[in-house]
């Protein structure tokens, strides 16, 4: 009695599983999802308050990075005052959360009207490829984004039609916020060492042994997340070759290569600095967050980072130097308009608001760097220094972006590879070869 029942139930279970598999394999994954059409009307003149009013009482749903919250507290009330029929409803996500979920949210039936993506293949590339975001070429034309300060910062948000290369083509996003890499220094320590703030990587390289000799850790580095090392690498690499070549490589341009003398030299420099002890010991076991905290607490003479680290440092004790010849900058997460939105006028009005000198000043006031740098200034000396560095990199044309934009897995490939180089476990030639192989795989 017992045995047949046992077998029978097993059979039922197996049957159920088999049916479930059969059922679920009816259609290829993704074939049920609605393919968004880019039907939302193009605009041929600036959006007026009355254009937006035609939408009636409406809610503009948005997704944004948590870091935007202080800025949004200033922007949203002013926007809602100007367009009284619109209510702004923003869902905030931590940056990691945002980049891993926003594409799926944009693809869902209940997609937000306006949202932030992230430059590069992982997020923006996927959004463009799946036609989830509206082209902004008409908006840029009407509002004159293509001229004046900030025009060049739009480039990373331009894509070809198939979403396979970026840097030129159709505009799909706009970021009002910029970032600049450079070097923070501890003022008191520089003074006691008798050094001036370095403005080039060559000057920095001269300062490092002096700091080391005095018993200080020259550069505070926390590289367990693998990205801090790539930032230092890119600061050096951009001085060794033409910035435009790096930009092409990051953008996925055919024929671009990472196997250059300049990149090998930069990797060698990283190795030399590491083996000379300029990064201290144990940097691969320290997170970047912990490293900036230690630097803020007085450990280390220099910290290679970027404007996003400024919030952790007080202006009295620290300064920021643009390594002008090597400073690297980029735009922050761009804003997109969903291709599914029915509230185009309100969404365009929102982007226009963000892309204004008023908001530019508010961006600086809330501790970040605006794309529109006309007439903005800060009373905070550290922030003013950072703003100057940003203008310098834009003028020098070294706003090449970040290496990890180029393929979805580049952060771990390049970050992990650099760790191996710095530990002396691989040669710089093998490193550039591995990176190029991953790039070729991602851009075939």
């Amino acid at each position, binding site marked *: 009695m017992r045995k047949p029942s046992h077998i029978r139930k097993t059979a039922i279970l197996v049957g159920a599983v088999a049916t479930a598999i059969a059922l679920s394999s009816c259609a290829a994954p993704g074939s049920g999802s609605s393919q968004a059409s880019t039907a939302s009307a193009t605009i041929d003149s600036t959006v007026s308050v009355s254009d937006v009013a035609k939408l009636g009482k409406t809610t503009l749903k948005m997704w944004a990075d948590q870091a935007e919250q202080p800025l949004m507290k200033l922007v949203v009330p002013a926007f809602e005052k100007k367009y009284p029929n619109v209510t702004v409803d923003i869902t905030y996500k931590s940056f990691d959360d945002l980049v891993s979920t926003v594409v799926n949210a944009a693809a869902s039936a209940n997609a937000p009207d306006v949202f932030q993506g992230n430059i590069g293949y992982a997020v923006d590339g996927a959004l463009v490829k799946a036609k989830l975001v509206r082209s902004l070429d008409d908006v840029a034309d009407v509002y004159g984004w293509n001229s004046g300060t900030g025009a060049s910062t739009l480039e990373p948000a331009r894509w070809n039609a198939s979403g396979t290369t970026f840097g030129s083509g159709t505009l799909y996003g706009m970021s009002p916020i910029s970032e600049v890499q450079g070097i923070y220094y501890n003022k008191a320590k520089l003074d006691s060492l008798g050094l001036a703030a370095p403005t080039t990587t060559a000057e920095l390289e001269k300062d490092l042994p002096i700091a080391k000799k005095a018993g200080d850790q020259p550069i505070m580095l926390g*590289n367990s997340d693998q990205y801090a090392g790539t930032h230092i690498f890119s600061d050096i690499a951009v001085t060794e070759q033409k910035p435009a070549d790096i930009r092409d490589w990051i953008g996925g341009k055919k024929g671009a290569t990472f196997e250059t003398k300049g990149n090998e030299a930069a990797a060698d420099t990283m190795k030399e600095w590491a083996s000379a002890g300029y990064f201290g010991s144990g940097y691969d076991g320290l*997170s970047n967050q912990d490293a900036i905290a230690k630097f803020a607490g007085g450990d280390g003479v220099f910290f290679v980072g970027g404007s996003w680290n400024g919030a952790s440092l007080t202006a009295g004790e620290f300064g920021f130097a643009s390594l002008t010849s090597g400073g690297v900058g980029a735009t922050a997460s761009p804003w997109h308009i969903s291709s599914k939105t029915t509230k185009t006028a309100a969404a365009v009005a929102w982007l226009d608001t963000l892309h204004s000198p008023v908001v530019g000043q508010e961006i600086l006031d809330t501790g970040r760097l605006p794309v529109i740098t006309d007439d903005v200034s800060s009373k905070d000396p550290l922030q003013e220094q950072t703003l100057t560095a940003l203008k310098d990199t834009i003028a020098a044309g070294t706003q090449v972006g970040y290496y990890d934009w180029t393929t979805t897995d580049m952060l771990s490939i390049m970050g992990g590879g650099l760790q191996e180089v710095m530990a002396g476990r691989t040669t710089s030639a093998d490193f550039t070869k591995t990176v190029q192989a991953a790039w070729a795989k991602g851009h075939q």
Partner: protein
Amino acid sequence: MTVVADRRTVGATPTGRRWRSRLTGLSWSSLLYVAPALVFFAVFVIYPICVTVQTSFYNYDGLTVATPAGLSNYLNVFADPTLRAALGHSLLLLVFYAALPVVIGLILAGAMSRIRIYGLTVFRALLFLPQILASVVVAVAWRGLLASDGPINWVLEHVGLGSIATSWLGNFDTALPSIGLIGTWVEYGLCMVLFLAGIVTIDRSLYEAARLDGAGPVREFFAITLPALRPQISIALILTITFALRNFDLIWNTTRGGPGTSTTVPSLYVYLDAFQNRQLGQASALAVVLTVVILIVVALVQLAVRGRSGEPRTTRTKRSAR
């Protein structure tokens, strides 16, 4: 596991038995009792598994329509040298995540059951604590403990062992064993509690008899406690091996697979492929292979532990009768 448990409940219900005899073996009324759980199980476990298996045969970015990939995703799993290295790391972690916790758990349980300790409950609770902490908390805490200027190195330096102090998680040679030891710390409490519960059910007269025959504590442990704990050891191994092979959060929150690729494990690549690289087919194929590997390893260990003749089975019946 859950399926087995459900089925046993079905069989044990008196009503079920009555109905079953009438309907030649099928107990519809008891199926009704488990229906809510079964529906939940089907929707949140069986269906996702089916979709995972299906997706593994496609190239799918989660957005556009998938294209059939045949077996290529599976071939990639076996062809990729980085994945093979990751699997090797997992096997080393088995020693730290499964073998060591079981050994430590046995020693602690053996000692605790023999020696009368005041405040035993408190100790038991404290030693079990790692098991109930969120793994992110565990990871962050250990990151601090193992840092180059952390307490562990401080102690080493003050007892004259400063030469071996290093950035434990940032050193290519020590990162993987360090993560392994964190796993040991998390898992031994669970093993200990399982074994203590098992020891309580051992007939005390067996120990008396052994003592009359002149057995010492060590002999007693190997002759009586260890064989009697076989079912608990088997459960402990299932849990710890599964934990070891699918472990992701500890590694992600301590080293992210670094330095270099020295602490990568397959589950790390499942995450990266699915959420970073948008290659859901590849991620699914790897997840399926990982699941099969876990099932095989667990089955092998079960055979080894339960293995010999009918002896362990008797013990098992005794336990389940309790």
